[in-house]
């Protein structure tokens, strides 16, 4: 009992926080640099079409947001004991439908807004081209987020990890990394 406060303060020591986080951060940043290599290899295309450069930060971040929605809902259902990995169950189907709907909305808005920004920046691109790039990348990303969300929750459930600690960070980071890769692949095909 007497050492309880000491242990508590200890978990809040600078050394222990840095030591817990640093290895994870190193691995994640190395993985993120994988998508950086893809981005850098397309540098000429992006610098020649600054309108595409405007899409890059959203493509880096939005996949993770979508993945987090799937992962958070599945983790909650896992804690409540109502989780099923059968895609015919209403709960899983609802998450899948919602994420697809969110992706359609967000990436349509993105396409239109960036089209307007491109005109204002003086490097216009055709609306059809931008919408194709935005929606095809966005929907592919949503499908990846759903598949990864289900897969990682399933694996952490099988191995007995706490899904809150494992699933959300893994899915978020994986989707962030794949976002840039998918986007660059779509740009390569469409342009």
């Amino acid at each position, binding site marked *: 009992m007497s050492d309880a406060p000491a242990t508590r303060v200890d978990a*809040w020591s600078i050394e222990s*926080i840095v030591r817990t986080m640093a290895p994870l951060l190193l691995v994640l940043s190395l993985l993120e*640099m994988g998508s950086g290599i893809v981005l850098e290899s397309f540098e000429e295309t992006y610098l020649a079409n600054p309108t595409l450069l405007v899409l890059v*930060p959203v493509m880096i*971040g939005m996949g993770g947001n979508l993945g987090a*929605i799937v992962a958070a809902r599945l983790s909650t259902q896992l804690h409540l004991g109502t989780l099923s990995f059968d895609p015919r169950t209403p*709960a899983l189907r609802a998450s899948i439908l*919602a994420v697809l709907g969110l992706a359609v909305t967000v990436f349509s808005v993105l396409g239109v*807004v960036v089209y307007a920004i491109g005109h204002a920046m003086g490097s216009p691109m055709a609306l059809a081209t931008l919408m194709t790039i935005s929606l095809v990348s966005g929907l592919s990303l949503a499908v990846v987020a759903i598949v990864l969300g289900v897969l990682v929750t399933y694996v952490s459930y099988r191995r007995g990890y706490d899904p809150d600690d494992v699933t959300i960070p893994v899915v978020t980071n994986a989707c962030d990394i794949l976002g840039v890769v998918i986007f660059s692949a779509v740009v390569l095909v469409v342009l």
Partner: protein
Amino acid sequence: MDARGSARTIYRESLPILLVSLCGGIFAGVVLGTPAMRNGLETYPGLLLALPAFLATRGNVYGALGARIASGLHQGLLDPHIAWDRRLVNAVVAAVLNGVGISAFVAVASWSILAVQPGRSPASLFALLGILLLASVLTACVMVVGLLSVVFAGYRRGADPDNLIGPVVTTLGDVFGVVFLAIAVALVGVIA
């Protein structure tokens, strides 16, 4: 509940946060597309390579700080005020050390990745390190103050801090990450 009905509920609950994050991302993209920043990306090869890792580590480092503060509030270990509390100071110092340290690592790694590729030559290690260190220190100040203010103010008004952290971290991180990167590029351009 049927799948369609609950899908609509999830959609309605998640859309506002995604739209806020979308605005932050588009703003960051506009900064990235400015002539000054494009010039910087061209002048300092390796910077675009470092960008995803730089932006993502903001999310991981300050997301973890936010989660720690939320747990501290829930457990009654922290008071919802910005004060010279040992736990709070430790958590903030550790997050800043992690954030700045990992940015230095990203700078060195990006430089090395380009240096070993035949036919590619990175910007000077000094310039890349300078830009990323400067940007990470500036971002750290805004992220710490912004995160603590929003989470504490939200908590005092009865909001669950867990729901505030994600959107605050992604939006502040995207917006200020790229803005401070642009400022750092300009400053290093003056010095070097």
